[in-house]
Structures are given as C-alpha cells and as structure tokens.
C-alpha cells in the first residue's frame, strides 16, 4: 500500500492545471516530432531541454514536459512508418514491415488504431511495471555481464535473417554491411581508431541515427525525385478511421507478448527501444509461425513492435532512475537533463527525492492517457501533417532530416554522411537489398563486439566463459535454433519461414512441386536463375512484395520497361 500512497503523492505533484497543460503540449509536440521522419525521441527531448530552461520550469514541470514528449515520439513514430514507409523514429522501423502493406491495402486507419492501442498497452503496462517491480528489476542489470550481453545480442542477430522480406542472402549481406560500418571509430578495447582514415569526425563511429535517417528518409527523397513525384509512396489514402474491434481482440495476446519482451529489453542497459521492437516483432513472427501473414500486412506485425517499443521506453526508465545507467539513447539525454536539474539518478534517488520519482511516474501515466486520446480518436489530426501534397512533404522531410541530425550531433560532417547513407539506401533498394538489417547491424555490431572482447579480457581469452552462466546458456539455446532452423524448415514448410511470399500479391497461392524445392534453395542462397539468365545485373530479382511492392515496376534498372512482369511469378510457372 506504500506504493499507492507514493503514487497519490506523485499525482498530487503532477496533477496541477499547469502541468496538465504541459503534458498536453508535450504529447502533441512529441507525436508530431515522432511522426516527422528525421526527428526522433532523442532529438525531440534534446531540442526541448533548452526550451524547458528558458521557460523557467521547475524540476517536476520540466520532467512532465519531457516525458510527455518522450512518450509522444514513441507513439508518433508509427504514423509515418505506416503511411509513408519511412520510420518516423528509430524504434518504429519494424512497424514499416507490416504497417505500410496494410496501408497499401486500404487499411491505414486500422493500422493506426491497432498500433496506437498497442502503444498504449505497452507503455501503460510498462509504467505499472516500473512502479511495482522497478527497483527490484533494476537488479537484473547486475546479472548481465559481458558474456550474457554477447549472447543476448547474438540472439537478436540470429533472428535477423527473418526480417528479410524475401532473400536471406541479401539480408545477410545487408547485416554484414551494417556490421562493417559498426567497426568504424575508436575501438573501446584498445583505444585505437579504426577505419577512420584519420578523420576526427569518425572517431566516435557512425551514429545509427544518421544512418537510419539517410537510409530511409533521404533515400525516399531520391526515389521521389527520380519518379518526378508520380506513383509516389505518399499516395496512401486514409478514409474514415473506425475502431477495428475484431483486430484489436485478435491482437490482444500479441500486444501482451510484445509488452513483456519490450519491457525486459528496455530494462537491460544498452538494449533500448529499437531492440525491444525488433525482438517483439521477431518473437511474434516465430510464435505465430507459418499461419501468419507477416511482411504483407498482418495486424500482429504492427501490434507487436509498437507494444514492444513503448514498453521498452517505459522499461528503460528503470535503469536510468535506479542505477543512473541510461537504457537507451533517449534516456541518456533525459539523464543529462536530470543532472542539470541537480537530480542525481542512482540507488538513492527513490529514497532521497521521492517526490521527483513519483511525480515523474505519475506524469508517465498522465501522458499515456493523453496520448491514447490523441493517437486513436484524434489521429487524423496528425495524419493531416503527413497528408500534404508530396511536393510539399518531400522538401519538408529533407529539411527536417537535416535540421534533426544537425541539432543532435552539431556536425556538418554528419550531414554529409547522412546524404551518403541516402545514396547507399537508394542503391541498396534498387538492388532489392533490405535496409533494416543494415541498421540492426550497426546497432548490434558495436555492442556485440565490445561485449565479446570484454568477456575475453575478463576470462583471459577462455572461450567457454561465454557459456558459463545459466543466463548465457539459456540465451545461446534460444539463439541456435534461430540460426539453424530456417535452413531445415525451408524445405519442410510450404511457405518459407516467416511467411515470406513466394508469389506476387494478388496471385493465387500455388503449390510448389518437388522440382521447385531445388529452385527455392538456390533462391535462398541469392541466386535467381532468371535474372542470371537475362544477365541484367542491376535488376530487382525477386517478387514485388512488402515494402518493395511499390518500387517494383517503377524503379527498374537495365533495359526493362515498367510493364515487364516481375520475375518471380514467371519462374514459378516455369518450374
């Protein structure tokens, strides 16, 4: 009951007309910042810190404003993921995989409502978790040493192949590209710069926010320019938004599972919301198995990552408040804010400054309720922002991307790097290489390597150390099937692992005759016989599906005209 009285105290601090006003303003700004590609939670919070100071807010008010913005961005990110296929912020990346296909099928409204409710469920339950088991759960961080973290990141990496909409080999290539980029910068274990070419700006490595904005937003702008604005992604229409009760009911379990996974990912320092949404999506995909329609507009593919990333956002508050360890990039910025307000997060914060902690927690609850209202019944308001004509939106996306990255890193070099990533993203998509694994490679690569090498230092290079605790053994056991299973399952299941489409959209699902298994194996290894036969190297080699459906038929290289049938169906018929 102590919790309840503390919570009452918190609401007493946070529930004044002025703080409520701040919460509404913060939620509104946050949702817009989240929805705009290029601006995410880290820069949302970072931009507002000086504002909080210049307004002369006291500690509680500043925290209410910033947590509202923080949670708001986590809600808002999904909007542009669904409508534009550009993640509005980094954790919303996974939401593009099913959200955009849903929108293409005319179910944008459903996707927005389902993801909005999922965000609420994730964030709300995580906040309750923060109240009840927060300080207790903080101890989980003590159980994770380098070996355990390595196994955790490995687990995430093992499931990465399944993200690919179609071609595993290309996904692997993309992941390796990301891993390679992650190697740039100062090596934590020796203090030596690597692959920086003597450039000081590369000493800190490549910020994955720069990469994500370049690969998604800037690349999208290039596509827009190429197509002269015709046939652009921004053609999605949003009709009347109704609440899809049946879908909500069907995705309840998904939301709860996503919440659980996201929460744990958030609590672990260094994992963060992006990993939370990724793990939630992948876990759901393998939980549902071949029955799912993932990658083609499955509502569960929207609910899982959104519940996951919002739960992670709440979970990440736990190590930040109780240990002073930021669980994500955004909490790192918030940590900086707390320090500037003369609040030192750490093991004594709950005891020494309870009114701050409980005021913060109360404001999280308030923000969530406000956000649910804004993001479900009033979602069209935000959609309007993104529904301006493409010739207005695209320059806006460009501008916001530049401003967003500059405000965060303050370096013109990062702007050039971002444009470089945009060009890379353009070519990767031309070649039909998925870009999500690149980001995950960068994100996970650094942590994986650092933790492996820390483990090696601690154990004097003794490899069995990696399997020496129950937690790491458990994670390894979970990881190995993720890597091995697709190889065997592919030849067993009618539908390839993860429900990847073997056929074009709208085409009848065909039975694969035995002869085509062999073909499918080749396909899985990245060889497309038809493409090879045609000798057109730079040509999309797979069926138009999921995210690339809209690029197929528009962006063809080589001699192909727009009306050339997509290669995959032809191949299916041939074998």
């Amino acid at each position, binding site marked *: 009951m102590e919790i309840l009285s503390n919570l009452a105290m918190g609401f007493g601090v946070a529930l004044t007309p002025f703080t409520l006003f701040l919460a509404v303003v913060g939620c509104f700004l946050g949702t817009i910042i989240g929805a705009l590609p290029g601006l995410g939670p880290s820069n949302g919070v*970072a*931009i507002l*810190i*000086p*504002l909080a*100071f*210049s307004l002369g807010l006291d500690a509680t008010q500043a925290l209410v404003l910033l947590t509202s913005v923080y949670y708001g961005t986590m809600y808002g990110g999904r909007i542009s993921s669904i409508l534009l296929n550009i993640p509005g912020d980094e954790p919303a990346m996974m939401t593009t995989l099913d959200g955009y296909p849903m929108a293409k099928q005319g179910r944008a409204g459903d996707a927005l409502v389902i993801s909005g409710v999922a965000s609420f469920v994730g964030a709300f339950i995580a906040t309750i978790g923060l109240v009840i088991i927060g300080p207790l759960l903080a101890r989980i*961080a*003590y*159980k*994770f*040493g*380098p070996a355990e973290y390595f196994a955790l990141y490995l687990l995430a990496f093992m499931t990465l192949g399944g993200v690919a909409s179609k071609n595993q080999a290309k996904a692997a290539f993309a992941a390796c590209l990301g891993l390679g980029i992650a190697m740039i910068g*100062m*090596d*934590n*274990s*020796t*203090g*030596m*710069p690597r692959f920086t070419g*003597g*450039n*000081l*700006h590369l*000493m*800190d490595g490549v910020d994955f926010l720069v990469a994500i904005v370049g690969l998604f937003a800037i690349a999208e702008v290039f596509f827009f320019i190429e197509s002269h604005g015709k046939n652009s992604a921004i053609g999605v229409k949003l009709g009347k938004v109704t609440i899809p009760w049946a879908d909500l009911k069907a995705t309840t379990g998904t939301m709860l599972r996503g919440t659980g996974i996201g929460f744990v990912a958030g609590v672990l*320092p*260094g994992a963060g919301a992006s990993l939370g949404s990724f793990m939630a999506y992948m876990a759901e995909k393998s939980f549902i198995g071949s029955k799912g329609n993932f990658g083609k507009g499955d509502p569960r593919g929207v609910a899982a990552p959104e519940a996951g990333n919002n739960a992670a956002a709440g979970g990440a508050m736990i190590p930040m408040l109780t*240990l*002073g*360890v930021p669980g994500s990039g955004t909490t790192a*910025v918030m*940590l*900086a*804010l707390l*320090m*500037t307000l*003369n609040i*030192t997060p*750490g*093991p*004594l*914060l709950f005891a020494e400054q309870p009114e701050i902690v409980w005021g913060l927690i109360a404001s999280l609850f308030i923000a969530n309720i406000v956000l649910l209202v804004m993001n479900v019944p009033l979602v069209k308001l935000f959609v309007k922002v993104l529904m301006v004509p493409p010739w207005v939106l695209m320059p806006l996306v460009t501008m916001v991307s530049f*401003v967003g990255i*500059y*405000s965060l*890193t*303050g*370096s*013109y070099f990062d702007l050039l790097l971002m444009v470089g990533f945009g060009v890379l993203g353009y070519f990767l998509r031309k070649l039909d290489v998925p870009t999500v694994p690149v980001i995950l490679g960068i994100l996970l690569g650094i942590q994986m390597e650092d933790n492996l090498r*820390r483990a090696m*230092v*601690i154990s*004097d290079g003794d490899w069995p150390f990696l399997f020496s605790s129950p937690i790491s053994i458990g994670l390894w056991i979970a990881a190995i099937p993720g890597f091995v299973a697709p190889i065997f399952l592919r030849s067993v299941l009618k539908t390839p692992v993860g429900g990847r489409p073997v056929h074009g959209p709208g085409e009848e699902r065909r039975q694969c005759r035995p002869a085509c298994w062999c073909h499918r194996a080749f396909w899985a290894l990245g060889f497309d016989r038809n493409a090879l036969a045609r000798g057109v190297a730079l040509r999309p080699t797979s069926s138009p599906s999921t995210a690339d459906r809209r690029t197929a038929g528009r962006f063809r290289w080589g001699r192909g005209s727009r009306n050339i049938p997509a290669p995959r169906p032809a191949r299916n018929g041939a074998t």
Partner: protein
Amino acid sequence: MTKLSFRALMGGAALAVTLGGNAFATECIAPADAGGGWDFTCRQIGKLLYDLKLVDQPVQVTNMAGAGGGVAYTHVVTDRNEDADLIVAASSATTTRLAQNAYAGMTADQVRFVGAIGGDPGVIVVAKDSPFQTLGDLVEAIKADPTSVTFAGGSAAGGFDHLKPLMVLKSAGFTDFAKVKYIGLDGGAEAITQTIGGFTQAMTGDMSEIAGFIKSGDVRALAVLTADPVPGFEDIPTAKSQGFDVEVVNWRGLYVPRGISDDEFNAWAEKLQAVADSAEWKQIMADNGLAPFTKVGADFQGWIDGVVIDTTQLSKDIGVIQ
C-alpha cells in the same frame, strides 16, 4: 560563426543571445554534449563569470561534441587561434588524449591552459562482499597474479579511468602494465553494475559518478586518490595514507587559444582565480562532489606539460601508443 549561430538557433533558447551579442560576448565551448562534465564546467564557470561581473554579457555555451574533445580542439587551433573571447572546458581527459596523440596530430602546446579550479577525485571501489579490504590487498593480489583482478571503468582502454589503477601500481613498483586487465564501459554507472554483479573485481572512476553507490552501500571504496580526504567522505582513506604516493584527480578547468596576447591570457587567469575564490564556486563544488584543486596561470601550464610527458610514457608502457 554561421555554424555556431545555426546550432544555437536549433537549441531554441540561445536565440536572443546569438543574434544580440555575438560581437563581444564570451563564448565557452563544451567539447561534449549537454549533461557531461565539460558542459558542467562551461555552464557553471560561465554563470559565475557573469554573476561576479567578470564579463559584461552572459557567457554563451556552445556544445561541440566529437572525438572526445578532438573536434573542438581542432576547431580552436585552426579557426579561432586569436579569439580572445573564447574559453574551452578541459579536464584530465583532454591532456590524456593529447598525450596519446588522439587529436589527429594536434599537440598540447597548440593552446594555452588557463587553469583548473576543482577536481573530481579518483576512487577505486570494490563490491561490498569483496575479499579486498585495503588498497594494499588489491595491489598485492595483482602483484601475485595480474590475471586475478579485472578493473572496470567508464572510459575506453587507455583512457583516464584505465590509467588510474596503473598509476597506483606504478607507485607500488609494479610496472608490467600490459598484464593488468581493464574493460572500458559506457560511463561509470555501467562500470559499477559490472563490479556489483561480480564480473569485474574492482572499478575505477570519479567520485561524482560513484558517490551514490558508496552511500547506498552497494560498493566499498578502497581509496581516494587525493592528497587529503574528500569532504563528505572522510572515512575513505587516501592512497597516500595507505603508503601509495599517488594523486589522480580529474581536474576541471579551461584552455584558451594559443594566439592571444599574454595580457589577455593573464586576464583570463585572474578571472578564473576570482571564480575559484568565490563562495558560490565553493558551494557548487560541495554540491557536485568536487574537491578543491586550484592551479591557475603559468604554474598550471608547467604542471600540464609534466602530466602530458608522464601520460605519454605510461601510454607507451601499456601499448596504447608506440
């Protein structure tokens, strides 16, 4: 300047300052993002400079993160070499990186170090149930078997946190530094969780990042690496009192461009001394776990030169540089 003004605009708050007072306002560059130690230095010293009427306009703080201070250092040396209205936050990390040639060939003599007016004491802590009771126990264990102890710290290998235990060991006559195990984590708090979890046997860091964990009893401090006990933590023995003649303090101070005149340099030194002597600064130090550590002017430059030479040698010994 366009770049800086633009940045401030993005920040939103400093708009008026930027447009109104660029000509004569003092600028303090914090070579890291908001919230870190350098940012703290700029904001607090900047505020006191104005409050004490040592400068006539509020000091504008610019955050210029990158390469552990290298981006700002290069900027000052190449673009602002004669700007007498510019001060830059510095600390032990600045000299450590300069000594290790981590600023792309820039050297410590390309700027002038004005002074340090406070220090974050170095601390060595162990988990509360650790068998090590004194600093001597820890050093003896490493001497007997260097692989038996791994240190965790908040800086990369070769960084200041890594050098702290090595300086202690050096004073005890142990110089096989390459054998001493150290893992660098993202900040002191993460390093502490690794130590509390039992993954590393000891942790080295600054008092400000460890204080909360010492008070809560999760970790036990073996020694502070200052000349005198740290106010508020008098029961933690100094390394000196345990027979190790070593003093490792993460000083907080400023440097200015090389090209300014001696008069301008001396004026900054006097202003900094005035800040150090003020009651307000003493209060700020007490609130933030800083210990007195004042060296200003020409003395400071001489001290820095010595520190750079020592650090270069130590870094060569552990193989961070050739």
